[in-house]
């Protein structure tokens, strides 16, 4: 089937090899070839965008230009990288003057942004290119209708005219595994990751409110598709026992871990032991 150029970013490989490995294993099961992009730069995150818009567009345009030369779409598992790449892609596609200025800089590196390789989030590739029907056919260990709350992550969904991603993509992908999607009041709310360097207490409070909303709605598990959101909801959850005296015990799984298990991968193949809040209870929820 298709080949994709993977922009893995720095947070996924550094902090969440379980996300990276489960993405690769799932892709392999569907015959997708994922090739790491070589010689690419860090996306810089929204914090780079805040202090240095020109530098942020330049490093990301450089990555897009390298992807153009591979003639494959560029795929990433990180909402932060996706948001940066897609926003810069959108800017350069719509603003000719800006693109010319960027390309004048890139020429010094022997590169040119053409926009032939489109930045895409891995879940959108699963949804669009593989498709729900093909996924359903390969599910060998469906879940028993267990309730999973989805934290989409802001930069996956918004701004909608830039990301071109709707919430249904992920909710349908969760349902196809046999799990139930738990609706909760704060489903759109931010995890707080971006303000962590500026106001840690605020960031933690946002994560706490989010977890409480999921738990109150009856979620047994939650899923994320971004390493920064996972930091906030999984890792920070451990600290909430002290700061808020609250223990949510809500396991947070990356979506490819959930799909991988339903496709018959074992817990080690999806790195389930690396999730901070123990995620192994999900193994009790296969329907057969």
């Amino acid at each position, binding site marked *: 089937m298709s080949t994709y150029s993977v922009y893995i970013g720095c*947070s996924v490989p550094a902090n969440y*090899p379980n996300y990276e490995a489960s993405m690769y294993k799932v892709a392999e099961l569907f015959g997708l070839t994922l090739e790491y992009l070589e010689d*690419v*730069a860090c996306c810089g995150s929204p914090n780079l965008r805040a202090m*240095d818009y020109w530098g942020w567009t330049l*490093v990301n345009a450089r990555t897009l230009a390298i992807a153009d030369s591979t003639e494959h779409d560029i795929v990433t598992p990180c909402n932060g990288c996706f948001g940066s790449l897609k926003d810069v892609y959108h800017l350069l596609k719509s603003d000719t003057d*800006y693109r010319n200025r960027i390309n004048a800089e890139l020429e010094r590196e022997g590169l040119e942004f053409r926009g032939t390789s489109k930045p895409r989030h891995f879940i959108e590739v699963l949804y669009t290119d593989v498709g729900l029907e093909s996924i359903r056919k390969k599910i060998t260990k469906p879940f028993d209708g267990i309730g999973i709350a989805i934290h989409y992550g802001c930069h996956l969904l918004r*701004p909608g005219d830039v990301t071109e991603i709707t919430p249904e993509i992920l909710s349908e992908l969760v349902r196809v595994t046999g799990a139930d999607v738990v609706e909760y009041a704060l489903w759109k709310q931010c995890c707080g990751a971006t303000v962590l360097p500026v106001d840690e207490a605020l960031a933690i409070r946002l994560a706490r409110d989010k977890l409480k909303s999921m738990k109150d709605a009856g979620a047994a598990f939650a899923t994320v598709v971004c390493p920064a959101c996972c930091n906030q909801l999984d890792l920070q959850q451990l600290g909430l026992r002290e700061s808020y005296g609250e223990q949510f015990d809500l396991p947070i799984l990356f979506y490819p871990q959930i799909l991988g298990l339903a496709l018959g991968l074992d817990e080690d193949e999806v790195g389930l032991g690396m999730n901070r809040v123990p995620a192994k209870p999900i193994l009790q929820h296969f329907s057969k």
Partner: protein
Amino acid sequence: MTEIGEKKELPDVFIDPIDMSELDRGFRKEIQSMPNGEELSACFACSTCTSACPIANIWEIKPHQLIRMIILGIREKVLSSKEIWLCLTCFECQERCPQGVRVTDIFFDCKNLATEEGMIPASIVALGKELIEKGQLYTVTADWEREDLDLEPDVPGLSTDAVKRVLGSTRTGRLVKGGR
């Protein structure tokens, strides 16, 4: 308990009038010339952005007030406000603006202008320093975890030199060196 008819002390002025001489009338155009700032003038102050913001209730200056202040030219107060740096960048405000004003994008523009004038939190400069010195924001600390999953030991495909080279010649480089 207040008796009916009792005279309650009222302030001399309910709303401080704007001193027109202190307005920077070029500020609106400055923002409009920046990426995604074109629609700024379409704001009719409905405050939908403020309603959409998850943390506006802890902001002294609300999102719709910041936008109004930009239009009026209250430049210094906008650029020195702590609120622009507390923006979650969740894009809820921008998504719901009925006038198509790219509110979150405009706050990014404001942060760039504030940075240019040296008004940037030290923690954000520190992230710039990471990018200039290490060429990445996160480094692998537990390579045995990657090994267990048959992944290559370091961040795949990442050129730290490219980050250092590109950002070294832009504002990030100047900022980290201590200049502007």
